[in-house]
């Protein structure tokens, strides 16, 4: 499990170093597939909860969401490069500081250490990286990827919880909501292509 968590963190950080939109989608896909692997590591998916997790994480997050966005982007033929962060040392240093902060904070939340602490640290780091990308980028595609990465980080956090207090109908509902969100995100990426002109100013558009 710890190796999978390390792989998840690597994959979450990948789009900040290999700045193409294809890498961003591949990273999203790998995040989903790694989480599905984590579910399988716990044992055979015989319960409805485990099956739902596999479908949600492996199929929807790992395959469907990236493929849908890939098809939209491929049709738009955007530039190869698609920064997830502002391309400067300050952004990278901030990202590194956020990862370090996430690990320190996880140490306070789960002082016992072990896999639970690592899971908290990795999900917190992935979430902070996604939020940093959302805060610094204005492109619709980059923001959509940032939002999906944040959702994946939250899913990883929930996966790391030992208990599992969420009833099945609510989990099913959450999976449907995620599916609908992916569909809507892909529509926005289609409607607001990257090469579109400057955004209209709020006050200036009053007339």
């Amino acid at each position, binding site marked *: 499990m710890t190796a999978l968590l390390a792989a998840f963190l690597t994959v979450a950080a990948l789009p900040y170093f290999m700045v193409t939109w294809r890498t961003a989608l591949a990273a999203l896909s790998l995040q989903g597939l790694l989480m599905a692997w984590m579910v399988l590591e716990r044992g055979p998916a015989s319960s409805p909860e485990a099956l739902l997790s596999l479908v949600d994480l492996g199929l929807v997050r790992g395959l469907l969401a990236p493929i849908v966005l890939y098809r939209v982007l491929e049709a738009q033929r955007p530039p190869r490069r698609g920064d997830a962060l502002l391309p400067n040392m300050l952004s990278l240093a901030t990202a590194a500081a956020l990862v370090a902060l996430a690990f320190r904070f996880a140490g*306070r*939340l789960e002082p016992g250490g072990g896999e639970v602490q690592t899971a908290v640290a990795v999900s917190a780091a992935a*979430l902070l990286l996604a*939020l940093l990308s*959302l805060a610094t980028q204005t492109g*619709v595609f980059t*923001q*959509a990827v940032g*939002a999906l990465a*944040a*959702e994946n980080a*939250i899913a990883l*956090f*929930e996966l790391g*919880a*030992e*208990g599992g*207090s*969420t*009833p099945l*109908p*609510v989990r099913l*509902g*959450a999976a449907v*909501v995620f599916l*609908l*969100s992916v569909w*809507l*995100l892909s529509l*926005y990426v289609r*409607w*607001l292509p990257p090469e*579109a002109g400057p*955004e*209209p100013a*709020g*006050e200036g*558009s*009053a*007339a």
Partner: protein
Amino acid sequence: MRTERPREAGPAGATEGAVWPIWLLVALSLLAALASGVLAVSHGTLRLLGGYLLLDPTAKLFLPLINLIFLGIASYVLYLVRIIPSLRGRLARFVLLAAAFMAAANLAVASNHFLSNWLFLELTTLAAAPLLIRDGTRASLLASWRYFLFSSVGLGLALLGFACLARGLEASGSAASLFVDEVVPGAPSGLWVKVGLALTLLGYGTKLGLAPMYAWLPEAYDEAPPSVTAMLAAVQFNCALVGLFRVIQVFRPGNPELVTAQLVTVGLLSMAVSAFSIVTTKNYKRLLAYASINHAGVIAIGLGVGKTAMYGLLLYVVSNAFIKAILFLTAGKIKAHYHTKDMREVSWLINDLPYSGLFLMVGTFALLGLPPFGSFLGELIILSELIRGGYFVVFVAFCVLLTVTFVATGRSIFPMIWGEPKAKAWWPPQSFKAAIPKAVFLGALVSMGLYLPATLNDLFRQVAASLGGQ
């Protein structure tokens, strides 16, 4: 400039469609309003669908409120599509999404599980986001995108908060159930609970338009069609608020300082952002949007200080739902006639569009918290609790920000109503039929300030008590 005739007849060759879907929506919303009204006067608390739905005083107060407001909005849209055939082209889409929005809104208010409340709130967002888009308008598309993005991230943080709260409950030895009526109020208060509570308040604060996650709100309220803005400001706002109430009612007793500090801070910050923006804007729809941020700030402060402020807070919340519905529908009417959102281009409304002028005037009085409206009494009660609780710095900041907002709003809006006419204008006489929904809202608003029936007053007191009010 102002001699141009209003666009009531619609563009030539516009697509016309059937009106029956909107009749169906009005009928459904009437049924929902009647059913929730009957429910509000029934006794006891009902637990339905295996405990997933809870009809307690909070649900009994807010279900009739959101359904009545939605009935008014649907009736307003019905009137519009009857006189403007070009609006019928995408009516079926509007009706479908609005019906889904309202179904989810009702379920969100009645949810007894924190995550099902979150889930239905997400569904209202998914239904509302496409409704914000107007044909061929990139600005509305961008506004819709930002609304969707901020909502998704905000609600994502709230979901993470709930996951942390569940861990906190588990760590403290309590059952990790997130059913509202199963969590023992005030029991756990470890680090997980504190982190969870902070994230949940931040997440729900995004839906309420509280600083720092308010950036989506002015743009969305400005660009959306008026009926959709009213739905967001008066219906969805209250659904999110009910979710926040549920969190507060369960987790405040164990963490009173954290809740008070966070809510009062974001409340004051929101009021400051709103006051500054109201001073600088020249767009009357944006001004109303900034006023909504101000309201959210007042509500956060009232909720933060609690105790006797709770009753005033509820008065303020219910009054504001009506105020926002009146003002945003009226702003849409003004925009449709003047074809501008620039307040400097609009004047002498009370003569040009008498009903709109009247609603804007009375709505602004209520917005500014003048007597005899419920918002006045609500604000007064919250202010007195600030003094009683010893929050003197907050009291001073609250009063200063409120005064700035008051002056800036009056200075901007009143010239629109009574200002010297800038050019000759001719409008067709306004029909009272279009004004009926707003007149009903106005009646409810005024009556709340003058006389609250005993049954309704009891309901207010019960909800206030469930939130720790005295």
